[in-house]
């Protein structure tokens, strides 16, 4: 049996931007061996006490040599607040890697990454797992204070388009409008995207209008129980059937998933 459930030690916790943190865990080899970009970990809270549910957090980067997994997260409520208080040496109970992740094929040479807010985080894992492709990134931030990891994308992408809601970093625009502009010029082999639902709805419009032939994969969020396919609480409608985000997703084809 692959060891997907383990107690992992916190290697570091650093602030990345306003309310945004990077958590690095020392993990076991099994967790990295079959890891695919877009997969997530299901993290039990420290001193969980009355909090029974884990919190799903996408893998941000991995380091197979150092045997670490890094997560980037935004404080939303009690769970992410507690994670932001971890200290090196603390132990966390995690399930990883979970889900199917992005389905990157040989034919996907020109890959466009479209991320919004904390949804940018999982896209960085492409760098560590699928090197040697031609990447372009579209990163949408709320504002400069919330911007994180832009440098990392610049490190492996041919071009990085940054937008923000208030223009305090990059151009003042929706990230999907920046995408539209580039789609009008050329088409990638695949678009991989992660972000909030309203962004996906805009993305779908842009895709319908300017990218119908481009395979587009979106990574969905849903409130989760088990994370392992057992409880059927994390569903979304995909091609007319209720699918589990944790097991059948979180990545679905934009043509099939109901947004």
């Amino acid at each position, binding site marked *: 049996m692959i060891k997907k459930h383990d107690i992992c030690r916190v290697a570091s916790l650093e602030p990345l931007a306003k309310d945004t943190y990077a958590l690095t865990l020392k993990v076991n080899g099994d967790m990295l061996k079959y890891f695919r970009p877009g997969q997530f970990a299901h993290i039990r809270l420290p001193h969980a006490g009355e*909090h*029974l549910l884990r919190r799903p957090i996408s893998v941000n980067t991995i380091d197979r040599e150092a045997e670490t997994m890094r997560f980037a997260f935004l404080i939303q409520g009690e769970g992410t607040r507690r994670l932001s208080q971890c200290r090196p040496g603390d132990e966390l109970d995690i399930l990883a890697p979970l889900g199917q992740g992005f389905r990157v094929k040989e034919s996907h040479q020109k890959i466009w990454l479209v991320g919004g807010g904390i949804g940018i985080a999982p896209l960085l894992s492409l760098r560590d797992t699928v090197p040697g492709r031609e990447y372009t990134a579209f990163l949408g931030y709320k504002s400069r204070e919330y911007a994180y990891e832009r440098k990392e994308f610049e490190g492996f992408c041919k071009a990085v388009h940054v937008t923000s809601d208030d223009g305090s970093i990059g151009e003042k625009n929706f990230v999907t409008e920046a995408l539209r502009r580039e789609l009008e010029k050329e088409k990638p082999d695949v678009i991989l995207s992660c972000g909030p639902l309203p962004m996906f709805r805009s993305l779908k419009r842009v895709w319908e209008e300017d990218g119908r032939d481009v395979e587009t994969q979106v990574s969905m969020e849903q409130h989760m129980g088990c994370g*392992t396919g057992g409880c*059927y609480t*994390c569903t979304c409608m995909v091609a007319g059937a209720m699918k589990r985000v944790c097991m059948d997703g979180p990545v679905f084809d934009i043509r099939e998933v109901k947004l």
Partner: protein
Amino acid sequence: MADLRVNIAGVNFKNPVIAASGTFAFGEEYAAFLDVSALGGIALKALTPEIRPGNPPIRIAETPSGILNSVGLQNPGVDAFISGILPRIRRFDTVKIANVAGRTEEDYYTVIEKLNDTEIDMFELNVSCPNVKQGGVTFGTDPNSMAAIVAGAKARAKKPLIVKLTPNVTNIALMAKTAEDAGADAVSLVNTFTAMAINAKTRRPVLANVTGGLSGPAIKPIALRMVHEVYRAVSIPIIGMGGIMTGEDAAEFLLAGASALMVGTATVAEPDAMIRILGELNKFLDENSAATARELTGALEY
């Protein structure tokens, strides 16, 4: 190493820890996390005659020491189960319990009749799901409906019949006795408590379905009391559940009167929880000089 074997209505279980319906899907998903054949049994996800999409999401919420779910009996339908899933879970050497649900009495009977000649070992009549608007829970709260559906199911079932009781009643002992008198071979309790969570900032219920079912350690003290009450009212075996997270919790349910246990929320929190609970129960029995799990059943002193 205590003897963990139990027998419920003629069916042998290698140990008293059974996966609770709806929290372990059809078992397959868990092969990556534990040896499914090490479990006493698995109660499969509820089955209805037709495919059911269930309720819209959000379907789960966290509450203090509990969780709310409003899955609403999503399932592929009994035919798809028989042809597609059952052949794949044959390999698990554990007692397989079909959780039977529906809107009408006929729905329940259809599911039972279709499963009668399969390798399913037992039926668990789910007359207690709080997440479906019609049917389901009404059978479990009204003694007359309970008597009718249990008698009807018993007449058709070729396997032992467990009736799963809802805790949302004034007198659960009466409902258990009604089920026993109508022919139930065992009762399981408790299903979830109808409950709700509110997001005060958005002024909206957290669950799309407004209400859901509460499970987990929060309800354990009520579940224990109910098992204890039912134990004094009936002579058929009881499968106890509600917030079992540790081997000691399991022992408490046995003492209150249960012959076997189901574990739901613990699995949602930790996929391999049942294996841990089994180990802890074993250790508890050894440390408290009990040679068998069976001898704890109803052994509460008061």
